[in-house]
């Protein structure tokens, strides 16, 4: 747990990140915002504000406490495990109230009330430790310096050690194994730019296979050129819809498309990455170009960000079935997140839900891999 808490890519070290709430702050603030008795929302809101201002310190204490508790249990010494259990129980109860909101007000998705079983589990572990008879002290055997460790790693010695290992030692080794088992895939997903599409599918479900002529369009790209569906024939098209002033999902989706182009490598010459503007108010070329510069897409040769008059855009949104709504009071344009895959003949072959999920590097690369896979399949089997 300490490893997971300390893992850099998860955002727990930052109370606020680039002007928005960090992972923990966001969790707590979201929870505090749901309807509940005032006293509970005040606790959660206060903790959220504290975490926003002192994110690093909060996580440092968290990691240190978790690591200390874990080390105390792994040591197998009841004398250390007893205070660790007390600390752990206190943390669990605090978490249950402040993080899980008693598990039913704004509890965190998959794990409301998980803290109570955790306390019971830890208590059971402590009882198991405390119930073991104390080891009888054996006289220390001194070995010549430089010989002792070599003796210890010989097969026979290892066999003897394994046979004599206490249940605590086995449990400790098993725990470390479990941590490695959990952390390794996460590390791989964070580091790899070619994550498996399974994460994206888990968020949005499998893509819908279809096969019918795609709705036509005639719009203007970021260079001022007219682009029609017919003008793109012969290439696989990865198509999405983006709002050029959107501050949340659209920049993420743009990055996923850019990454998909990189994953396609040489194949990207036969693929067009196409976005159609979602914003009927900020539809000028200057905004399209500003968005491209923001996302590092201005120099991507097969990137097309298309815009047009409000009437032209509304027609395309209608034809592709993507709802767009102008919301009042300082909100961004209301829209969904979609992607479409078109084959070389201009037929719509797949529709993908494109909710960006938790927006981690792993999910971004997973979406990109999903897009690249879809394009490669059509390149191989038009």
């Amino acid at each position, binding site marked *: *747990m300490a490893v997971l*808490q300390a893992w850099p890519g998860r955002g727990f070290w930052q109370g606020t990140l*680039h002007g928005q709430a960090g992972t923990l702050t966001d*969790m707590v603030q979201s929870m505090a915002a749901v309807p509940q008795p005032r006293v509970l929302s005040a606790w959660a809101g*206060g903790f959220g*504000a504290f975490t926003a201002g002192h994110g690093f310190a909060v996580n440092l204490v*968290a990691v240190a406490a978790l690591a200390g508790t874990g080390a105390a249990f792994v040591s197998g010494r009841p004398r250390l495990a007893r205070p660790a259990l007390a600390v752990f129980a206190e943390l669990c109860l605090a978490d249950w109230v402040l993080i899980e909101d008693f598990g039913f007000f704004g509890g965190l998705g998959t794990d409301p009330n998980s803290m109570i079983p955790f306390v019971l589990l830890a208590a059971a572990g402590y009882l198991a430790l405390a119930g073991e008879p104390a080891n009888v002290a054996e006289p220390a055997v001194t070995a010549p310096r430089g010989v002792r460790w070599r003796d210890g790693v010989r097969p026979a010695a290892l066999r003897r050690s394994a046979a004599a290992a206490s249940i605590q030692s086995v449990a400790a080794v098993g725990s470390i194994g479990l941590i490695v088992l959990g952390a390794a895939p996460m590390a791989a997903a964070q580091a790899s730019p070619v994550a498996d599409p399974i994460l994206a599918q888990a968020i949005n479900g499998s893509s819908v296979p279809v096969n019918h002529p795609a709705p036509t369009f005639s719009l203007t790209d970021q260079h001022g050129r007219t682009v029609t569906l017919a003008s793109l024939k012969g290439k696989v098209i990865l198509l999405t819809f983006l709002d050029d002033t959107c501050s*949340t999902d659209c920049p993420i989706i743009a990055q996923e498309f850019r990454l998909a182009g990189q994953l396609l490598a040489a194949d990207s010459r036969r693929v067009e990455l196409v976005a159609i503007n979602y914003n009927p108010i900020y539809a000028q070329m200057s905004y399209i170009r500003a968005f491209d510069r923001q996302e590092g897409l201005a120099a991507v040769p097969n990137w097309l960000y298309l815009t047009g008059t409000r009437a032209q855009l509304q027609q395309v949104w209608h034809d592709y079935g993507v709802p767009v709504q102008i919301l009042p*009071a300082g909100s961004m344009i209301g829209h969904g997140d979609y992607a479409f895959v078109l084959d070389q003949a201009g037929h719509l072959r797949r529709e993908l839900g494109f909710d960006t999920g938790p927006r981690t590097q792993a999910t971004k690369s997973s979406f990109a891999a999903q897009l690249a896979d879809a394009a490669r399949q059509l390149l191989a089997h038009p």
Partner: protein
Amino acid sequence: MRTPARPAAAALALASAALIAGCGSSPAGHATAGPAPQAPPAGTPFLATSLVTPAGTWAVAVMGGPVASHNNFWQLFIRPAGSKRWKLVTPAGVPDNGGFVLAPAGASLITGFRPSQYLTYTPMAATGDGGQAWSSTGPLDGALANVPDALAAAPGTRRLIALLAGGTVKLAAPGYTRWKTLTTRRTVAATPQGRQCGLRALTAVGYTPSGASLLGGTCTRPGAVGIFTTTGGTWQAAGPAIPADLARQHIAVLRLTSTANQRVALLRAGTGPAVSLVAAWSADGRRWALSPPLPLHGAATTSASIGPDGTAAVVLTGHRGETISGAGSHWHTLPALPPGTATLAPGPGGAISALVVHRARLTVWQATPGGSAWTKAQTISVPIQYGSSG
């Protein structure tokens, strides 16, 4: 921000974070950076302000929230000239969680939206009919600074000057699609006048009546006022001389703006509990008349507005409100402000409105000159779209 009431509660809260690690789900974890570079932090409450144009009195306030910054939405209201009623005229099409900045340009009003979250450039919109219809203009590459005078239009030419979050000053001709760098804080600080001031930060941009650029900033040298203008391509000090009783204080320009016939600056003198405010007025941007200092007695300034004829109105913590009507006048303490006052809107004839925000509801309170109480005048429910920027 609230903090836990007791250290023990804080410790408990701190410790509870530990148990997130193995819990799996995060409702909306923003764990990793998005596209580079990132937008600056959300707008500070000091962006709340009001100003007057021929179209009417405009007011800016942040609403929604209060827990998550992405549920804070900045709103624009107008009381049209000749009307007693305010109405909501926030431009649509841009998430404005980062706040926005207004620049009167003749009969028009230009709005620059400070970017938030993954947006990093500044969308802009303009209206020529009192906010009934808006058209997009710009944009400006980069994020506007987090100050109410980060954008200004030149008289006559309507050329825009913009102060970016990093201290760069940009210029653009109408159309506002092509921006060029005028200067940077670093460049101005390196000039003889900048060194004399010890320029630490730029906090405002504007124009003189003749169309010369004006910059306002914070000086580290006691008694120096960081107001600069260009003369023959070089930056010259253009701020007022500070009276002897404030000569040992550090001066910061909080506001630097224009009314129909004068420049108005609001200066903060001193630090800590000894802070006082000084208002300054100038017809030509060079010769200034100063107000008496207003001791804040430990209060903080949360909003400052400039009304017709250069009236300054400030909101201070502790429900304090103060106004001053121009050169030669004195600060006037308003009746205790209604809780939640976001900004004050000085109007014609000395009347003043307090715009009070509670979540999605704006209440306008009115005080007459010399009055001893506030009267509720109007309530507006704003259709905040909670979660739309989450």
